[in-house]
Structures are given as structure tokens and as C-alpha cells.
């Protein structure tokens, strides 16, 4: 099945036929999406259902949430997934509604923003001291 019918009956964008980078992005969007289905939903459940937002002070994050290297690793993995997935998703949005120089400028802005956010998140998860016990 190909052509218009396929276009109106799917919510996602079609698999790129050109291969290379864009095809890799297409697969990575789905792969990171699956990763986020597990990590982001678990993250939201932990921070809203297992614990209440009001009790999650900076001290609590250090002692409980990020008290183990395993949790920090999971959260750092989630950071990688979400930065790629959300910024590449925004790139699709920008590509749909802008063109020419504006599109290039906004896309470059997104790549820069993704790098800055990934760096900030990595600094946060890696540099917070562990509790002394």
C-alpha cells in the first residue's frame, strides 16, 4: 500500500527513502521513543505517584533519588533519549512550518539547544555529590 492513502492514515512521517542520516534519524526516533515509553513513564510515576512533588527537595534528590550510580545511569540514558527525541521532533515541526533561511537558522538553533541542554543535564547528574555514609 502506497501513495495518498498511506499518508492520511498514519500519524508518523514515512520512512525516508533516501537512506543515510535521515533514515538513521527515522529509526532512532522510534528507538528512543520506545526507550522513553519505559524510562519517561517510569520517571513520571516515581516522581508523582510513588513520591509527592512537594517532598522532592534538593536534599531528597541527593539522598534518595540519585543516591545510587544505577539510578543516575538510568536517568542519564533517559536524558540522551529525550534530548534526541524531542529536539529531532521539533526539527520536524520547524521543517513543516518554515522554509529557507528561517528554517536553517531555527534548525541550527535546535541543534545548539540540544547540545546545551544535554551538557547541563549531564553536569547535573554527574556532578551532584553522593551522600556520605
Amino acid at each position, binding site marked *: 500500500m502506497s501513495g495518498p492513502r498511506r499518508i492520511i492514515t498514519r*500519524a508518523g512521517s514515512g520512512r525516508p527513502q533516501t537512506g543515510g542520516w535521515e533514515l538513521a534519524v527515522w529509526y532512532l526516533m522510534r528507538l528512543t521513543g*520506545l526507550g522513553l515509553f519505559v524510562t519517561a513513564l517510569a520517571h513520571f510515576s516515581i516522581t508523582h505517584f510513588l513520591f509527592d512533588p512537594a517532598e522532592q*527537595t534538593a536534599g531528597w534528590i541527593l539522598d534518595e533519588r540519585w543516591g545510587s550510580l544505577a539510578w543516575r545511569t538510568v536517568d542519564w540514558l533517559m536524558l540522551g533519549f529525550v534530548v534526541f527525541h524531542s529536539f529531532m521532533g521539533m526539527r520536524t515541526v520547524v521543517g513543516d512550518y518554515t522554509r529557507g533561511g528561517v528554517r536553517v537558522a531555527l534548525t541550527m538553533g535546535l541543534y545548539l539547544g540540544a547540545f546545551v541542554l544535554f551538557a547541563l543535564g549531564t553536569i547535573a547528574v554527574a556532578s551532584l555529590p553522593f551522600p556520605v555514609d
Partner: protein
Amino acid sequence: MLFRYRGGEGMLAWAFHRISGVAIWTFLLLHVLDIWLAGVNPDAYDEVLKIYGSPVGRVGEMLLGAALLYHALNGLRIIVIDFWPALTRFHRAMWYACWVIFVVVGVPGAYLILKPIWNG
């Protein structure tokens, strides 16, 4: 009116996916910054946390959860359709199934998030 547009459910599924995605992206910018703040200025972070615990903050978190849950469920539907194109026939049924799960999981979830507003 929306349902009678040519695109039908498929178009709505796409529109909601895009709107929820942009909303989650916006929150992500804020969220990475506030966690970064927890490291460099814990006291300032604890001040920001008061907003998250406030009634307005909780309504915001409920909306964030709704966006996240819809995006996750419909995203799974997209992946199923992408890798098993024959199932495109059932894309409407799968979209309605997303909404069933959305309500079954989302309503108790919203209750848990909002409960402290009236329980104090």
C-alpha cells in the same frame, strides 16, 4: 466539526501527537534547568519546588502527565503501524484503544496528583 474533516481520526491523532510533543519539549527545557539548579543552588531549587507542590503546579503536572501519556500511547501506535503496515487497517481501533488506556490510567493518576490540593 473536527471529526468531519477529511483526515478524521488519523489527522486528530497526528495533531494531538504534535501538540503534546511540543508541550513536553517546552517542559523539558524548564525541567533540565531546574535539576541543574538543584546542584548549583539547592536553596533556589527548593523555592522552585514550592511551585511544583502548589495547586497551580499540580494542575500543570496533571496536564503534563496527560500529554506524556497520550504521546507515549499514540507513539506506540505509530511504531506498530510503521513496522507492521498491514495493521494500518486497524489504525482507528488502535487510536480508540489508546483513549481507553488513557482514561483507565489517567483518571486515577490525575486523582493522585491533585489529591493534596484538598487534603492539604
